[in-house]
């Protein structure tokens, strides 16, 4: 896909997951035992054969920078092209914090203009799915579209998720004919996936026009306004979509990964999900381990009981500990006879002997990074 430049807008600081996003952006939030949320958006591009990817970051970008490094693990540390990370204030075009997606994109317009590609694929990170974009680009070109946006039918999603999203109406030809932004009671059937393809020159023109009017939101100030004047097409995505825009959604979608079909679709079908390689040993199960329905990363040492849970790298579960319906992030430890249920432990948390933490499925308890309880 030499024609497609990838851009990931990871400056989405309107998405907050309680303590989990206190010191990291949503893009850097750990998910699925060994990944970060951005791994999906980035791997989708790499698996589509996209060779140049720019990532726009905003506040708390440190953990994201550490995670991405020079892009080796995505094979994007190339001599020409590869991975470009834009910290705020980085581009000489930028004038401070981004008010919205238009500011964010505009700040890297020089990078986009200089690229060799004709089209730009822009994606966010908090919509998690695995997909390759060959067909979308073909669809875009065949339709002679100005913009092609990805959408999925909303069925199966909860009202919570609509509130922070855009719903669209698509006619029989695939043209997007109407949109509603963050509705409480949506009239339309399709959720916009924060991902679109656009010609480089058109993007340049639209961003400039929008900025010159003092506006800053790509969906509200560009897509919605231009529905009739531009040919905006919708590409229907039929796969699995996780929209991680709240702590509940985060919890629920992690638990989804215990379903083998969903794992198959996310991790295998569209190619591997690349992530930072940590060189950790395989997981070790002791004589006392009792593990049921869990996904477990390398480096775990399990001497206790774990059920319906997600264990990240290097987690230690001591003898007699009982863990149920929980997410335990990297290097956390649950000591002897502690009981956890419906809990999210951030990284490097220590739960001392015989402590209990019980949350509810619709209100999981969240423990901040490094806490000792």
């Amino acid at each position, binding site marked *: 896909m030499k024609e497609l430049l990838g851009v990931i807008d990871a400056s989405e600081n309107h998405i907050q997951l309680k303590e989990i996003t206190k010191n990291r952006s949503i893009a850097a939030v750990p998910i*699925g035992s060994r990944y970060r949320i951005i791994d999906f958006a980035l791997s989708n591009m790499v698996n589509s054969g996209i060779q140049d990817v720019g990532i726009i970051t905003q506040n708390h970008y440190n953990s994201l920078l550490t995670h991405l490094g020079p892009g080796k693990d995505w094979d994007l540390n190339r001599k020409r092209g590869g991975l470009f990370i834009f910290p705020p204030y980085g581009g000489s075009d930028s004038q401070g914090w981004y008010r919205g997606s238009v500011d964010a994109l505009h700040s890297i317009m020089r990078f986009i203009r200089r690229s060799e590609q004709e089209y730009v694929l822009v994606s966010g990170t908090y919509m998690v799915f695995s997909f390759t974009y060959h067909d979308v680009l073909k669809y875009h070109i065949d339709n002679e579209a100005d913009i092609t946006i990805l959408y999925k039918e909303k069925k199966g999603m909860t009202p919570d998720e609509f509130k922070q999203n855009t719903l669209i109406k698509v006619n029989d030809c695939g043209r997007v004919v109407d949109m509603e932004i963050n509705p409480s009671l949506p009239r339309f059937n399709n959720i916009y996936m924060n991902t679109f393809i656009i010609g480089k020159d058109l993007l340049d023109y639209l961003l400039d026009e929008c900025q010159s009017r003092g506006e800053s939101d790509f969906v509200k100030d560009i897509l919605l306004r231009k529905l009739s004047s531009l040919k905006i097409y919708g590409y229907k995505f039929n796969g699995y979509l996780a929209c991680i825009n709240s702590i509940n959604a985060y919890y629920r979608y992690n638990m989804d990964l215990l379903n083998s079909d969903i794992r198959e679709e996310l991790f295998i079908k569209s190619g591997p999900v690349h992530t930072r*390689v940590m*060189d950790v040993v395989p*997981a070790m199960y002791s*004589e006392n381990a009792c593990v049921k329905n869990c996904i477990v990363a390398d480096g775990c040492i399990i001497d206790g009981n774990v059920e319906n849970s997600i264990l990240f790298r290097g987690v230690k579960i001591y003898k007699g500990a009982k863990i149920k319906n929980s997410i335990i992030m990297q290097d956390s430890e649950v000591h002897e006879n502690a009981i956890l249920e419906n809990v999210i432990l951030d990284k490097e948390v220590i739960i001392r002997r015989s402590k209990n933490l019980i949350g509810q499925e619709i209100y999981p308890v969240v423990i901040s990074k490094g806490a000792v309880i």
Partner: protein
Amino acid sequence: MSKKECIAMLLAGGQGNRLGLLTKNLAKPAVPFGGKYRIIDFTLSNCTNSGIDTVGVLTQYRPLKLNSYIGNGQPWDLDRLDGGVYVLPPYMKGKVGEWYKGTANAISQNIEFIEQFNPKYILVLSGDHIYKMDYSKMIEYHREKHADATIAVIETKLEDANRFGIMNTDKDNRIYEFEEKPKNPKSNKASMGIYVFNWNTLKNYLIADDKNAKSEHDFGKNIIPQMLSNGMVIYAYKFKGYWKDVGTLQSLYQSNMDLLEFPPIFDLYDPTWKIYGRNQGLPPHYIAPSADVKRAIVSEGSSIYGTVRHSIISTGVFIDKSSIIKNSIIMPYARIGKNTLIEDSIIAEKVTIGNNCTIGRRPDGKARQIELTLIGENAKIPDSTVVEKGMEIDSVMLQDIYDLYQNDAKEAKAL
């Protein structure tokens, strides 16, 4: 290229006959180990962790997978601008080419390669040992002793000493005699096959040895004895810690099982001495509600629906419901069907085993030395197959068995 203090030469040429079918299509150092590693990972990681950034891997037997596995050396941080890891096969000079004739000859044929880096010391390593060792300390010892050569030794039980090359040393650990598998060992210091040499000294010995038609061109049998008889200063460097030569199926199996000891005999969890390997980019492993996993190592990308006891489950393995894996090593990407029993076995890479099979069942009530069963790479074992204890089977044999069966069937019909 700039001058290097020390470069390592890793002998990875051996065919590894004693690993049986495992090395039929694979160089020994590329054999999987410990769930997600290959044997060579340990030596390469030791090099990186010891600050040695230039490693020549000497290989002539089926190096393809090894070559691809090593690739650009990035997983071991050996993708260096000046140095890094090089796979060194035999090559043609002028009209003739010759294969490596022994460990010393393999180094000797690569004098030109080594000279490029103009090293002061050269570290000679084997590609089939499992251990963690800081070579920089051994080199430091070699330097302090002003030695011409230093040999790493491990203290064995005296009764085992007759299976090793034994170093007889004075009080200061200077070696005055080397005995290959002595009947009446005078010492328990066994050579680990790890040598540090002053390169200029070694080079002369290699050149001389090459001209000696009677020599087997082997470090232990020829070079070291010759150096000793010339009065060269050779020291023994005592190594303490876990070390295992995994040159036989039995020792490979045992060394894998050692990883399951708790507290560990051989600890891989030390963050200051990571073992690096090529990552496969697989998702985390999944333990199903029907699974029962105890005393096991389980690697990324596997899915377990059955029972696992005291076993190593490697990357990408699938174990279906109601199956039981006991005291076994399941190598990468093997698939085990339903209701199958596997005991005391090594299941090689990409093997498929059907439903209702029994592989290597241990006779009831008899506790004796484990007799291993081995299913070779890519073999497809049909449903309801019984593989008896101690057998080694690969896909070609399976075809023979099948043909035989067909013949029998034909003949039966003809009759």
